[in-house]
């Protein structure tokens, strides 16, 4: 694997080529899931809304790859990718939840914005911007008090960094040295609000200094860059070094949600970012050929079709069960 080592010595250090390929396959699975989700919407086969992460796959897979089984994930509304990238994720249960079926992760009660896999310590996506940030403080405290070696990864967008919850959460995590990794997916926009207008600073990671914690900005379309930064932050957290704020620079290829004319950005800008496709870049780093990649893509799409079939064959939640889950 000559080309291999040249491009990414790190891969050799951490992963076998097979493992590295799994990351690529995971990104392809996410891409395929999102494209199918979009299609199902267009066909009117799902209702509600959705937030596609096409273009951001490297951040999801890179981050999850840096965590350990048993760690916690607090995800956000643009969370399909993170959920699929997390430990023990089940694409059938994902798709079933997306389609509101009883076999879904949340028995059809949650839908796209609330997919969780509690058994795997994936504490769920969140429909509220920055909604997971205060919760991360509690997860961090709990880990500290239970004296386990866990770490909490909390994912949020650039827009979330302007909610008061961001401020309170980072400050509390800092003063108590909580094992939390704050991963800010800066995809350049909060709905229609460009980062350039919502912030008067160059890098969101510069805000780490306001809490006395490390802050770093990485190329979010480079899986290895995200992986490296998150791994370092997670190790620091695990060893009692406290929280880190990581800003992952990426871009969403699609509109904000189901209906978005995207009047706030230009086609050229979108095209330019599409040139930095995280999947193609990682495939190249791995020395995966076009043909191979096409096979892997087809395999991912086939897997998604299976998931759709599973979801469609699954029952709707029974109306009689409507009160279940309100109280323990």
């Amino acid at each position, binding site marked *: 694997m000559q080309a291999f080592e040249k491009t990414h010595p790190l891969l050799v250090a951490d992963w076998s080529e097979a493992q590295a390929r799994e990351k690529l396959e995971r990104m392809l699975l996410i891409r395929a899931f999102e494209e199918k989700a979009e299609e199902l919407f267009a066909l009117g086969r799902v209702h509600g809304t959705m937030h596609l992460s096409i273009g951001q796959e490297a951040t999801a897979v890179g981050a999850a790859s840096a965590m350990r089984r048993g760690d916690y994930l607090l995800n956000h509304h643009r969370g399909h990718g993170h959920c699929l990238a997390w430990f023990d994720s089940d694409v059938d249960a994902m798709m079933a939840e997306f389609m509101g079926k009883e076999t879904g992760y949340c028995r059809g*009660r*949650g839908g*796209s914005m609330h997919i969780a896999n509690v058994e795997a310590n994936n504490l769920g996506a969140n429909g509220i911007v*920055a909604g997971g940030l205060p919760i991360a403080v509690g997860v961090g405290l709990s880990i500290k008090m239970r004296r386990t070696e866990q770490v909490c990864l909390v994912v949020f967008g650039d*827009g979330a960094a302007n909610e008061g919850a961001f401020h309170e959460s980072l400050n509390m995590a800092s003063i108590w040295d909580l094992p939390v990794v704050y991963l800010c997916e800066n995809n350049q926009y909060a709905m229609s*609000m460009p980062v350039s207008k919502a912030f008067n600073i160059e890098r969101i990671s510069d805000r780490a200094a306001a809490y006395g914690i490390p802050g770093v900005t990485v190329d979010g379309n480079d899986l290895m860059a995200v992986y490296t930064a998150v791994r370092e932050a997670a190790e620091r957290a695990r060893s009692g070094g406290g929280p880190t704020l990581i800003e992952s620079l990426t871009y969403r290829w699609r509109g904000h949600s189901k209906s978005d004319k995207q009047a*706030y950005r230009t086609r050229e800008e979108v095209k330019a970012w599409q040139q930095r496709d995280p999947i193609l870049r990682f495939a190249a780093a791995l020395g995966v050929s076009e043909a191979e990649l096409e096979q892997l893509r087809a395999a991912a799409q086939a897997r998604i079709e299976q998931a759709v079939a599973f979801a469609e064959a699954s029952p*709707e939640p029974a109306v009689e069960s*409507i*009160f279940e889950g309100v109280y323990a």
Partner: protein
Amino acid sequence: MPDAMLDRLPLAPPPGSREITYVEAVREALRQAMAADPRVFLIGEDIGVYGGAFGATAGLVQEFGEQRVIDTPISEAGIAGACIGAGLTGMRPVGEIQFMDFVTLSMEQLVLQAAKIRFMFGGKASVPMVLRMPGGSGTGAAAQHSESLENWFVHVPGLKVVMPSTPYDVKGLLFAAIYDGNPVIFIEHKLLYKTRGPVPEAPYYLPLGRSEVKRAGRDLTVVATSNMVPRALEAAQRLAGEGIEIEVIDPRTLSPLDDEPILASVKKTGRALVVHEAVKTGGFGGEVVSRIVESEAFDYLEAPVRRLAGLDIPIPYNRTLEAHAVPQVENIVTEARKLVRGEY
């Protein structure tokens, strides 16, 4: 005391009405108010070039510029505070909370500041502001994007709460809210945005605090709010086929509540049903029921007063469950029939 600007506006209805949608009525009131008064401005998330999550402000930034149609970062406490500070110092802010659910982040500013400043300062200041927000379920947006929290605000002295059900009411009440001189929570409904109705083109206002009888009837008084008004009216039509005539009353302003027409109606019908989408327990229905049974209307009651409201659960994502979580036309028909036929 309402703003002097109101004197310049006719009490509805001026001539020349045509059919527009509920969301167009919101936009028209905003546009006309901004054109007439430089103190009026809009502030909220994605209300500029995006036009608002539901299109209520589409085109307004092009017309009035970014200084008067202000896109904010995602900071709901900041949006509320911006309205309070601007209102306190002579402006007439109209804020938008993208989904009513997110107003949970503005409660301190609205309840401890906006609602209390005038009273705490001995009546020497006022906080004229309007905060618009879409409530309700029915779009598959699930538990965190489907709240109906109006009764929280009804429970806060110092705030007024408006919840229109028709395009005509939207326009007239929004003008009244902008010039009321108090903090007004203006609650729209996602499912009503695309509904159509006759609306006069010229500006006009409908005084806050006036309930309206949307349909007259002798057998049962149905007090319904927001999206439950059209459903109650549809139920009324069906029941009419069975010879049951229900009177449908829309408070329009939940606080202050004009209960006169409600009590008068109950004295006439002897029966009352309150219908709202918000979960039943702790909801606005309790207020209406209490106003009825505390009053002399109590002596006219021939049946228990009932509430038909949302189930006591978060709104589920699944389409079928979501529909079952809140009152539908059939449910209103059934409940009304029971009350009228004495089958309870």
